[in-house]
């Protein structure tokens, strides 16, 4: 039995590495971003990518979809985008008997990997159309509820610079993202590689290496990883520290935060830590795993108050302070 589990872990690691390798054929650098996206995929979550234009966010998502045997949909969010444009709608069609019938026309959400490009350009109304799909994996149109195909994975991008004509994501929407990954500029060395790959006649193309079932199996493996209570307690204390004016809140939270992470945040923290443990060939979650994913998991769940906005406090600094000051389940007894 133990050998089987060991093999299962090995398969997980290999499949993860293969996908990452295929993506890396196109995407240069951004290892942590790729890991984060795959974590989101394997944790049944969704990922919000934030970065200035031209850093390859959309390319990354497209490459990922190319590496997977999954149905890919791209939605370019614009201010005039309507909910029905993404969920689908009933249209009047001529029936077999020549009469008029209403037939549901699925929108782009009916896919496995959804690229919600520049999601903050759509109105909150349209953004909110994603809520049910992201959490329940269903879409309700009229009186009908339609199951989305699994795995359902939303990758949204947003530009932090252009605030004109954009709409900040609602808190409920933000909370549904497993991680928020910040895409940074590539290094000089990576830039050379990017130019070398993209300015030639032939561009590398990834192979499809993973299908939906394999992804679902990997998800099951992730869920099987046990976590000890002290480590889970550590994750909970970190999440509770993001809540202002509570017994566990951190000083910076009290000062700059309006809301903290929900239990969904704690779930994301533990799931991300489990994936990381598996990738490190461990079958237990450590506090280090928790800490390593905490920033990406919690940064978009800490909402700043007026003072925090006024002082332009970075939520990352609040999460970092929490990680620094939250005692780990270890006593210095030696």
């Amino acid at each position, binding site marked *: 039995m133990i050998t089987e589990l060991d093999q299962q872990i090995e398969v997980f690691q290999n499949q993860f590495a293969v996908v990452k390798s295929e993506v890396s054929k196109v995407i240069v650098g951004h290892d942590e971003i790729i890991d984060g996206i795959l974590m989101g995929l394997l944790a049944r979550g969704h990922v919000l990518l934030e970065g200035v234009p031209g850093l390859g966010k959309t390319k990354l998502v497209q490459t990922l979809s190319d590496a997977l045997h999954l149905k890919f949909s791209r939605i370019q969010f614009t201010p005039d985008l309507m909910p029905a444009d993404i969920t689908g709608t009933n249209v009047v069609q001529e029936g077999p008997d020549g009469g008029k019938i209403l037939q549901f026309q699925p929108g782009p959400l009916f896919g496995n990997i959804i690229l919600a490009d520049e999601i903050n350009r759509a109105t909150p109304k349209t953004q909110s159309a994603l809520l049910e799909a992201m959490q329940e994996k269903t879409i309700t149109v009229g009186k009908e509820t339609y199951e989305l195909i699994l795995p359902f994975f939303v990758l949204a991008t947003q530009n932090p610079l252009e605030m004109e004509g954009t709409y900040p994501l609602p808190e409920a929407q933000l909370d549904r993202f497993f991680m928020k990954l910040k895409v940074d500029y590539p290094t000089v060395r990576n830039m050379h590689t990017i130019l070398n790959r993209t300015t030639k006649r032939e561009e590398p193309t990834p192979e499809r290496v993973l299908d939906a079932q394999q992804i679902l199996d990997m998800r099951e493996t992730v869920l099987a990883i046990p976590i*000890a209570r002290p480590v889970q307690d550590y994750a909970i204390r970190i999440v509770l520290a993001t809540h202002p004016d509570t017994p566990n809140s951190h000083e910076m939270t009290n000062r700059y935060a309006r809301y903290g992470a929900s239990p969904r945040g704690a779930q994301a923290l533990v799931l991300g830590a489990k994936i990381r443990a598996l990738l490190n060939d461990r079958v*237990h979650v450590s506090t*280090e795993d928790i800490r390593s994913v905490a920033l990406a998991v919690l940064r978009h769940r800490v909402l700043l108050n007026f003072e925090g906005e006024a002082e332009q406090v970075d939520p990352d600094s609040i999460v970092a302070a929490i990680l620094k000051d939250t005692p780990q389940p270890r*006593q210095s*007894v030696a």
Partner: protein
Amino acid sequence: MSDRETIVQTLKAVESRIRTNRLIRRIATGLSVFVLTALVIKVLDLAAPFPSAAIRAFWVLWFAGLAAFVIWRVRERGSLADAAAEVDHKARLKDEISSAYWFLGHGKKNPWINLQIHRAAETARRLDPSGLYPRVIPPASYLAAVGIVLLLVLNFTPLPFGYSFVFSREAPELILGDRSAELLDELVEMIEDAEALGQDEVVEQLQELIAALRSGELTAAEALEELAEIQDRFEEGNLDIASIMEGLGEIGTELSQSEDTEPVGEALARQNLLGAADELRELAEQIGQGEQTSANLEQTLENAAENPRPGLEDLAEQLGQAAEGIREDDAQAIEDALNDAARELEELADMVESQQLKNDAASQLAELEEALREQERQDQEAAAAEGQDAQPEQGSQVPGDQLEQMQMDQGQQGEQGQPGQPSPDDPMGEMSAAANDLNAPPEFAPGEAGTGQMGQQVQPPDADAAMNFDATGTGQMPSGFGFSPDEKEGAPTSLDVLLEEETTEAQSAEIETEEDAEKIEEASREQRSKLDYRNVPSELTPAQQELLHQDRIPREYRNLIREYFQAIRPRPQP
């Protein structure tokens, strides 16, 4: 061994190593703190010796505290969960052992949990607790060791100002000054050199006294008392020696009358007893060889043998026998008698020499006694100065109501014609007046000022009778020696104070009835005296007054003085 046992055994080993290391470290730290505390106390004690009771209390608390600390630390136990967390941290196992230990106790059976436990057990088998937690001598232990060594050095090194603190020996009652120590050293050398001192008992007593003085076991008063006693015993033979030397002089004068014994007489006149003995032997030898003696030798010897002084009876008897031998013309008897007389003179010479050594020792003791008295006096002055510094307002409190009251008393006595001078019948009358002031609350606070005022007014006619009042009249109390408990606790002295009667207004009327008498009595109680005692001129010069106004009564004697004046307070008539 199962995975579970492996993990638990490893954790027990780790916990044991952690606990031992922690125990060593904390006990070393605690011990260093305790030792440093003792060192601080010891250093303070060197500067100002603590009473033995305080030292004993400190050591009791010190050992009790240390024992409690050690017991507390020894009883401290860590959990295996803590040990698991610690070993995870130490070996960078990323919570593997602590997770496995938690799963062992709480986790449901699950293949994944079993796998985790199995992997953790494999890791635990590779762990080396002794390598992870080696025995390390904590730095605090070096500090503690240095502190202990310092403490021992300070305790056992014979420093001139130190004494053993470890054994809770009492703080020295008397710390010898440089001069006293020097005299003591000379005295020791003298005793060692002077085997002829004889009187082993006295020498032994002196040696015990020296040892006690060096160890500070005696108070100044006890030391002075012992010194005086030994001094007296050393000087006991001085009168005898003086008498003997005088008698030898007389004998020498007599012997100078004869030509044969003239050298003997001259030697005796020079108090050269050994020379006189040699001359006598030479004369005996001459007579034994049959040489003729002068005609008046017999008479000279008889005269010398007459009326001998105490201690010279044997010598006189030998001289008398020599005279009798001349009379009987028995040369052998003369020779024997003169030789015996020579031996007697030698014994006398030894005795005189011994007494001279004793006199030297007594002189040395007198110097030592004087040095101790001087040291005691300086200590008292220093203590008085400290007392004044501590209560700078003490003297200034006097000139107010108290001084006014004192001056009123002086004036009252002045009107009696003898201000500040004790009458022959009542030498301490003024003291009793001052005592009234002392016991007149609230204007006069007992034990503070006012005691100095007493000294101004009272010149005790006899220093001993006046309870060792300082002869300067400053009111300073006994210096500590010569003040026996009997004198402290003797029967209270009864003193009568003569006050001038003042006629009240009511008294000017004639007393006819008993009711009038009561009115007069009541009026006299209510009416204040019009006599102004404040203008009584003082016979003291300003310098004397300034000196006498200083409160120089040592703090430790203030209660005694108050008790004294309370004891001699005039009692209401029965």
